[in-house]
């Protein structure tokens, strides 16, 4: 039952729902940007360059989150052979990879005025670059391997192995000495970021999550349609 439930549901997603999500996303991003760029205060040390954070942190969050989901989906896909899971992972990869790149580029732009360098090979930056390479590898397999079953298997393995990198990225700043500072927002203790900066960050994060959701749903819908079309073509 579960296998058939999902595809049909997504195909019946009306344009109205998409429009609603897009308006909501634009609202969050608009308010978030106004808050982040104009209303929020500069940092006591970094000054205005701290505003890069409002794009950098949500982008990194999405990049890690998407790949984490792809990893879990790939594990379940390999074990239970649920047909929709690879399509879900496949639909998440492009938006995740873009945000990984955004995270690296904004981080680089932030690094120059604060640290005094565009790039260093410390554990956090390097592991983030490795994540981006895993994204590229994952997407390339789907693009260049023609046989669906083969592409599915290889890409799933890439997603699972790449997921092992995620805790390394997350905890790199705690496990080793890095130039990158450690996390300001943790599950265990109060955030070390003042609430006047935390609020716009959370608004931007919600906006980014909504954007990711919209792009994912659109891609997923297309993937399902493609999958069904391929199946029909094979049957005929």
């Amino acid at each position, binding site marked *: 039952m579960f296998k058939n439930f999902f595809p049909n549901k997504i195909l019946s997603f009306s344009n109205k729902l998409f429009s609603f999500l897009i308006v909501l996303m634009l609202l969050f991003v608009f308010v978030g940007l106004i808050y982040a760029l104009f209303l929020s205060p*500069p940092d006591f040390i970094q000054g205005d360059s701290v505003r890069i954070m409002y794009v950098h942190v949500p982008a990194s969050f999405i990049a890690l989150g998407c790949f984490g989901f792809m990893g879990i989906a790939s594990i379940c896909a390999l074990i239970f052979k649920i047909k929709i899971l690879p399509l879900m992972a496949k639909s998440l990869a492009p938006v995740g990879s873009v945000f990984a790149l955004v995270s690296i580029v904004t981080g680089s732009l932030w690094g120059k005025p604060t640290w005094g360098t565009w790039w260093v090979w410390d554990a956090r930056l390097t592991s983030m670059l490795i994540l981006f390479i895993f994204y590229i590898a994952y997407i390339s397999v789907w693009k260049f391997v023609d046989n669906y079953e083969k592409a599915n298997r290889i890409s799933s393995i890439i997603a699972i192995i790449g997921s092992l990198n995620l805790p390394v990225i997350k905890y790199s700043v705690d496990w080793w000495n890095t*130039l990158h500072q450690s996390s300001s927002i943790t599950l265990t203790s109060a955030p070390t970021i003042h609430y006047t900066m935390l609020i716009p960050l959370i608004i931007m994060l919600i906006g980014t999550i909504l954007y990711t959701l919209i792009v994912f749903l659109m891609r997923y819908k297309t993937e399902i349609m493609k999958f069904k079309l391929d199946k029909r073509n094979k049957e005929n």
Partner: protein
Amino acid sequence: MLSKKVRSRIVILTFLLALAIAVVYGVLKSLEENVVYFFSPTELYNKEDIPFNKKIRVGGLVKDGSIINNQTSINFIVTDLNNEIIVSYKGSLPNLFSEGKGVVAEGKLKDKKYFIADKILAKHDENYMPPEVSKILKKTKE
């Protein structure tokens, strides 16, 4: 409940995952010297095989009141509150470089307590706040 096929796939995948985690752990452990971006003064102090002619990085806090600005070079002390090391540097400094703040110096050791840097990077911490709040915090500390 789970079919035999599914169960065998779970076993195989769990085994392979455990193997992969072990490999990643082993690689990171053996590369620890390279994964670590900089050494603290204490780590350098306790280190047996000190690389004198190799480029290394040392990081910590710039000790309060330790910056001596000559015309040709700048000297300051990097401390991790246990051990310290004198750093000598010629060149331009990043904007965030200041006393009491984090710093990473790249260069070569002259001896255990003296480091000649050819690059200085500022390291900042995870605290973010508006200037007014920082002022208030400082006042209450005093």
